């Protein structure tokens, strides 16, 4: 198919989705359903060609029968469709949960707790660098205090939790401010695409 036709189809779909901003409508619904289908189909192909081939088909061809086991385990998931034996699907679920949760325990403690704690242990004082360390340390302590649920937030502890929630709010504001650039970038990408398309239609130069 010529490039111009393809670009026009893509532009049409872009406009279909944008029309939702005015109101929900059949064009939008069409684009949405088409995309769900195409993405599911795309997934099937990529999973088969990239993963299933490498993890199951190639080892089987090389005479390694072991990958049959996880395939059987995976097939058990489909017992969900038959209510009398649907409990069997819990076996692969149990495997997924066990592996995921077990690996998560040490890793979460290391990355989210110990490494964060270690990184906060910095020399403090009133120099340029050390004062920043001090502020960060106080911010972290107060922030953690805010998430303390065993004690009432009163007295000195209450002050700490107040500072904690202020710190959190500055953090959330900063995240919001940072995010604007990302979202505008995405819109910019689409607008540039539409500009190229219009130029192509009227100027005759393909993008």
């Amino acid at each position, binding site marked *: 198919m010529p490039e111009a036709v393809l670009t026009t*189809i*893509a532009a049409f*779909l872009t406009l*279909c*989705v*944008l029309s939702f901003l005015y109101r929900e409508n059949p064009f939008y*619904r*069409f684009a949405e*359903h*088409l*995309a*769900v*289908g*195409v993405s*599911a*189909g795309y997934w099937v*192909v990529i*999973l088969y060609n990239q993963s299933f081939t490498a*993890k199951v088909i190639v080892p089987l061809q090389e005479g390694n029968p072991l*990958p049959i086991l*996880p*395939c059987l*385990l995976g097939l058990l998931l489909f017992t969900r469709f038959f209510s009398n034996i649907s409990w069997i699907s*819990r*076996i*692969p*679920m*149990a495997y*997924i*949960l*066990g*592996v*995921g*949760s*077990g*690996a998560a*325990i040490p890793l979460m*403690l290391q990355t*989210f*707790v110990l490494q964060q704690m270690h*990184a906060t242990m910095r020399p403090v004082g009133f120099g340029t660098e050390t004062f920043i360390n001090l*502020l*960060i*340390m106080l*911010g972290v302590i107060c*922030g953690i205090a805010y*998430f303390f649920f065993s004690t009432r937030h009163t007295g000195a502890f209450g002050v700490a939790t107040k500072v904690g929630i*202020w710190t*959190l*709010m500055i*953090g*959330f*504001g*900063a*995240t919001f401010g*940072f995010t604007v650039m990302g*979202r505008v970038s*995405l*819109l910019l990408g*689409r607008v540039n695409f539409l500009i190229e398309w219009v130029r192509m239609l009227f100027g005759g130069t393909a993008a």
Partner: protein
Amino acid sequence: MKRELPRMITLVTGVFLALQYYVPHRSSAHMYETLMDWLIVVGIFAILLGIAGLVRQHLTKIQSRRENWPYSVALLTGLFGMVILGFWGQGLGSPFVTAYFTLLNPVQATMFAMLAFYIASAAYRAFRARTLLATILLLSAVLVMLGRVPLGELVWPPFSLGSLEIPGIAQISDWLINVPNLAAKRAIYVGLGLGGSATALKVVLGIEAPHLRG
């Protein structure tokens, strides 16, 4: 059997993996790789299960001519069309890749692009200095927003007021991100790390068993 077997599997795999992390020996690493490979394969089937559910749902919709059924036709055409194209070939320039760039790419990209509009309306409608906390959030957001773009740096560069050095908006914005924001994220992470690992522990020990409830 119906509850005990899954419970045992979760317990054994979970405890093994929590402790395997401390054992670098090759046999432990090999066992770990095998378990993870299996997880990937089981995961492929889980995704297929979801897709099978999707197909079933839309087929019934078409068969019973339920409201909006023609959209389901578009969905299934897209799905099976992609699968057929994919097994035909998927190098650059193949119909599969062309379909991806023509059909999927624009819809997904535009969906995310709409967030720019929503952020604008949220800014207008919701960012109001109603309370002290809301005001802090709002000020921090505005400063970071302006500090990130060249226009902000042009309008508010660093300057000195007598002997006082006033930082530019870009520096203020960087400071907000590197100091209070960093402290905030770190505090939240500590909480989530403890909460997350405690919950994982309960799942492994079967104290919390979401998959056995249903």
